[in-house]
């Protein structure tokens, strides 16, 4: 398949633009993670997540639901939470809820697609983030 120079450079420009839009928030989060690690020992984070599968995934889903931004940021935060001793179930629920539940986008979605639909979809997405987290870690345990 032949690709024109124009198409290639257009794709590069689009990709660079997408990264450029996310860069300030991503760098902000990375440097914020450093601050959190400097001032909050991992014990504080471990105390919030009690290693109960369903409660941890519920907490992870709540945290992910209220956050907004590029999913890249969720992977960075999730990875660092994992290093701090938070369970994989909670981290999975966090990153899944981050991308599937849209509390911040809800007004726009409700206006365009209907309030009842948006409410139902977001509620199910929240519940599903818990199920997906539990199922994923269960499968990993078996593999």
């Amino acid at each position, binding site marked *: 398949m032949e*690709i024109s120079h124009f*198409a*290639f450079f257009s*794709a*590069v420009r*689009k*990709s*660079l*633009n*997408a*990264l*450029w*839009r*996310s*860069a*300030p*928030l*991503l*760098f*902000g989060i*990375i*440097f*914020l*993670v*450093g*601050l959190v*690690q*400097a*001032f909050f020992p991992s014990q504080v984070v471990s105390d919030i997540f009690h290693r109960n599968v369903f409660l941890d995934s519920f907490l992870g889903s709540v945290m992910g639901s209220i956050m907004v*931004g590029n*999913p*890249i940021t969720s*992977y*960075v935060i*999730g*990875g660092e939470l*994992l290093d701090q001793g938070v369970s*994989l179930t909670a981290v999975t629920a966090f990153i*899944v809820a981050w*991308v*599937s539940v*849209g509390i911040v*986008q809800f007004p*726009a*979605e409700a206006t*365009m*697609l209907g309030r*009842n*639909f948006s409410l*139902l*979809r977001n509620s*199910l*997405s929240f519940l*599903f983030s818990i199920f*997906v987290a539990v*199922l*994923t870690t269960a*499968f*990993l345990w078996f*593999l």
Partner: protein
Amino acid sequence: MKSDQHFMGARFLGGVILIYTIIACVQFSSFAFALHKSLSLLVKILPAMGGVFVLMIFTNLFVGSNTVARYVGKTSGAKRWMVAITAGFISTGPIYLWYALLKDLMQKGTSRGVVASFLYARAIKPFLFPLMISYFGWVYTVVLTVVMIVASFVQGFLIEKLTEQ
């Protein structure tokens, strides 16, 4: 809206830099520790971000997600779920850019369940796999992707049944 996102991110980054400046003046050792941790994290994710960039170019070059999304409205039967989930999987850009197209599809008869499947499948970002693999491993990435594809279908099916008139 795109420049708003960059501007908001820049304000957030500015706030973090301000906090670092204050900490550097008050407690230099903590500042140095925090900076060291942050720079280590940055170095850790840079190779994966390179992979993300390459995949983004590939997606932008070869995959017409807008065209695929329109195809969602033209299929029926069991195939429409597969098309909706695939379209969501390969779609890029902020979600609010897709609302107008989805509204149009719904008005033309596409079921709410299929639209819900598309929206849920958007949670799967193939071009971010390099970063996910570097953090969580490829086995986790594969398992999570498969579970989320199934969840997209189940959620869409449930919403279709619940919103049937």
